[in-house]
C-alpha cells in the first residue's frame, strides 16, 4: 500500500517540474471573521426586512412554504395546521434548547404525537430505537442556523440535541428561524462558516447541511419530481421575536 510519505513525495516531485499556468491566489479570507460577521449583523439590523422578503421569494421559488409569526408561542398553531392538512400526527423535534423553547405540551394539546430528540449522548440501543422513531415520523421540526436570502437556503448544523435525521427522514420538514439567522448572500454565509470553524461551541456535530427546498430529481425523462430521498415538503416559519435570549 502507498504510504503518506511516498504519495506526497510524488506530488512534490511533479510540482517541482512546473511553476503552474499563471500567477494565482486563493480567495481572500476574512482575517477576523467575528468582526466581519458583526458588521454583517449590524448592517442587517436595518436591511433585514428586504433580506427576509428576498428569502421568502427564493424559498418559494424552490418549492418551500413560508410562514411569518409574531412569537415563538405561535409556532405550534402553524405546525398543527400543517399536520391537520396532511392528516398526520407523528412528529420528531430538535431538543427544546436547540429549538428555542419547549413546544411539546402545546403540540400535544393540539392532538399531535411529538417526540423530542435527546439533548446529549445516549446508548447505542437508544440511538437505534430513536432511528426507527424518526424513520416512522411524518413531520420533522428543527431550527435553522442560517437563512440565506440570495438562494432561499436553510443551513442546519448537526450536534447534540439537533440530529441530522430530523430534517432528512420525515417526508415533511418544518424549520423555525428568527432574524439572527438571516444573511443576504452565500458570501456572507461563508464568513459565518469561517467563524463557526474557529469558535466551535461544545456539542457541535460533524455535519452542516445547506437545504434549498424539498428533495428533487429529474432523472426520469427530465420530469421534475419532489421527495425522492429527502423530504417532499419544506416549510420555514419566521418568528419576529428573537428566539434565543
Amino acid at each position, binding site marked *: 500500500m502507498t504510504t503518506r510519505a511516498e504519495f506526497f513525495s510524488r506530488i512534490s516531485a511533479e510540482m517541482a517540474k512546473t511553476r503552474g499556468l499563471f500567477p494565482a491566489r486563493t480567495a481572500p479570507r476574512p482575517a477576523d471573521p467575528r468582526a466581519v460577521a458583526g458588521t454583517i449583523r449590524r448592517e442587517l439590523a436595518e436591511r433585514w426586512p428586504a433580506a427576509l422578503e428576498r428569502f421568502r421569494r427564493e424559498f418559494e421559488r424552490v418549492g418551500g412554504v413560508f410562514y411569518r409569526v409574531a412569537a415563538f408561542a405561535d409556532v405550534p398553531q402553524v405546525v398543527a395546521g400543517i399536520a391537520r392538512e396532511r392528516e398526520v400526527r407523528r412528529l420528531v423535534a430538535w431538543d427544546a434548547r436547540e429549538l428555542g423553547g419547549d413546544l411539546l405540551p402545546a403540540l400535544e394539546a393540539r392532538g399531535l404525537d411529538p417526540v423530542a430528540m435527546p439533548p446529549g449522548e445516549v446508548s447505542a440501543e437508544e440511538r437505534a430505537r430513536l432511528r426507527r422513531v424518526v424513520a416512522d415520523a411524518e413531520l420533522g421540526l428543527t431550527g435553522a442556523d442560517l437563512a440565506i436570502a440570495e438562494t432561499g437556503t436553510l443551513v442546519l448544523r448537526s450536534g447534540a440535541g439537533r440530529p441530522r*435525521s430530523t430534517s432528512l427522514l420525515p417526508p415533511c420538514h418544518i424549520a423555525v428561524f428568527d432574524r439572527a439567522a438571516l444573511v443576504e448572500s452565500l458570501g456572507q454565509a461563508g*464568513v459565518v462558516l469561517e467563524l463557526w470553524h474557529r469558535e466551535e461551541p461544545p456539542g457541535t456535530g460533524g*455535519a452542516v447541511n445547506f437545504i434549498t427546498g424539498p428533495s428533487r430529481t429529474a432523472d426520469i425523462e427530465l420530469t421534475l419530481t419532489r421527495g425522492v430521498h429527502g423530504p417532499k415538503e419544506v416549510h420555514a416559519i419566521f418568528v419576529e421575536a428573537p428566539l434565543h435570549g
Partner: protein
Amino acid sequence: MSETDLSVPFRRRAGEALRDAHLQEALTIATTKFIGLQREAFGEFPEGDRLRDLAREIKEATLQRLDRYLGELVDNVERLGGRVHYATTAEEARRVVLDIATRTGARMAVKSKSMATEEIHLNEALEAAGVTAVETDLGEYIIQLAHERPSHIIAPAIHKTKGQVADLFAKELGRRVAADPEVLTQIARGELREKFLRADLGITGANFAIADTGTVVLVTNEGNGRMVTSLPRVHVAVMGVEKVVPSMTDLMVFLQILAKSATGQKMSVYTTLVRGPRRAGELEGPEEFHLVLLDNGRIRQLAGTLREALYCLRCGACLNVCPVYRQIGGHAYGYTSPGPIGILLTAMLEGPASVKDLAHASSLCGACVDACPVRIDIPKMLVELRHEVAAKRLAPWTERVAYGLLARLLASPRLYRWAKPVARLLQRPFVRDGAIRRVPLFDEWTRTRDLPAVAARTFQERWRELVKEERSQ
C-alpha cells in the same frame, strides 16, 4: 455487467448512436434544456463572470501548493478521528475499500453518485467480494438495474424512457409498474429507504474537500448524499487529489457557480459538509470515517499537458454544448467520463493511446470553454493530445504519412509553389464540382469530408500577376 464494447471502433459506436432515433431525441431535449437553464441562471447573476475567473484562479493556486493543502486536509481529517488512505492506482483504491468492507464485516454498501468510484470500477469489485453495492442516485439506480453505464455526468439515465424504467422496476419488483415518473420515483424512494437504514457501508465521492477544516463536501439534489453519510456505521469517501480547496471561503465561490453550471439551479437542494466520525451527543453519523486520496494518473499531470483538466468540477456543462456529444451521447465515448472533458479525463487515467480516435471527436469549436465554470481550455489540450497521438505513432500509417507530407509542404514556400501544378494534375480524377470527394486509401477520411480542390489559379499566382501589372503601369 454489459458495458460499451471497446473492441468496436469509436466510429462504429458513434454510427450506432446516430442511428438510434430515441437516443437522438432524448439527447436533443436534455442538452437543449440544460443549456437554457444554465443561461438563465447566469443571466440573473451579474457576478457570474467575476466568480468564474476567481474559481479558476483558486483551482490553479491550489494546484501550485497541492502538497501543502492536501497535507493540511490529511492532518485535519486525522485530528477529527478519521483515517486517510493513499491510492496510486485504481486497483489500490479498490483494495483499500474492500479491506475496509471486510474488516467491518459489511454486507451492503449504499453509494451516492460519484465519478471517482465509477472511474475505479468499485461496484464490480465489491460485488465480487460478496458486498452488495447499491447506487442510490435515482439515475444511477436505474442504470445499475439495467447493467449499463452513465451516459451523462449529471443525468446518468437521460437515454432511458419512462417506459424502459418502468419495465426495469417491474422486473426487479416482480409486479407491474406504471410508466409515470412520479410513481417510479416513489417506488425508488421506498426501495432505497430500507437499504439506507440497513446498509453497513456508505460510499461517496467528494465534490470538494476543505483543507482548513478537514471537511468533505457533497452536492446532491435528492438527499442521498445525506443518507449515505449519516446512516451507515462506516463512511468511505473516495476523492481525486485535485478536489481539495483551501478554505470555507473558497468553497463558497464554487458553490455560487457549480449548480448554475450543472442544472441551472441557484443552489442544488443539498450541500452536505461532513467532518470525521459521529461526535459525542450526536444521534447519527458513522462510527468510522475513511478518506481515500486517489491519484490514478492525476499527479503526473501536475506538470503534464492535461494540468488544466484537473480544475474540472464534473458539472457536465461542456457535454450539453458540445456538437459531438449532442449527436452521439455518452456511451459512444466508451469510458467513464464522456464529452469533451471526458476525452481529457480518459487520457489522464488510461493514457493517450486510449483516446487516439476520441481526440478527434471534437470540432474544436470552443463552446465547451465558454460553458465551463472554470474556463478550462479543452480544445487546446485536445490539439496537444492529437500531437501526442501522432508523435507516439498511435494513428494509422496513412494518416501519419499524409500529415507528415502536408506539414513539410506547408512549411516550405518553395516546395508549396512546386506542389501546386503537381496537385492539379493528381487531383484531376477525384475532383467533382470543385471538391475532392473520395480518395482511395483515405476512404475513411473522405467519406464524410469534402476537400476543396486546388484552384486553377491560386491566390499566390494571382497576387504575383497583380504586382506585375502594378509595376508595369
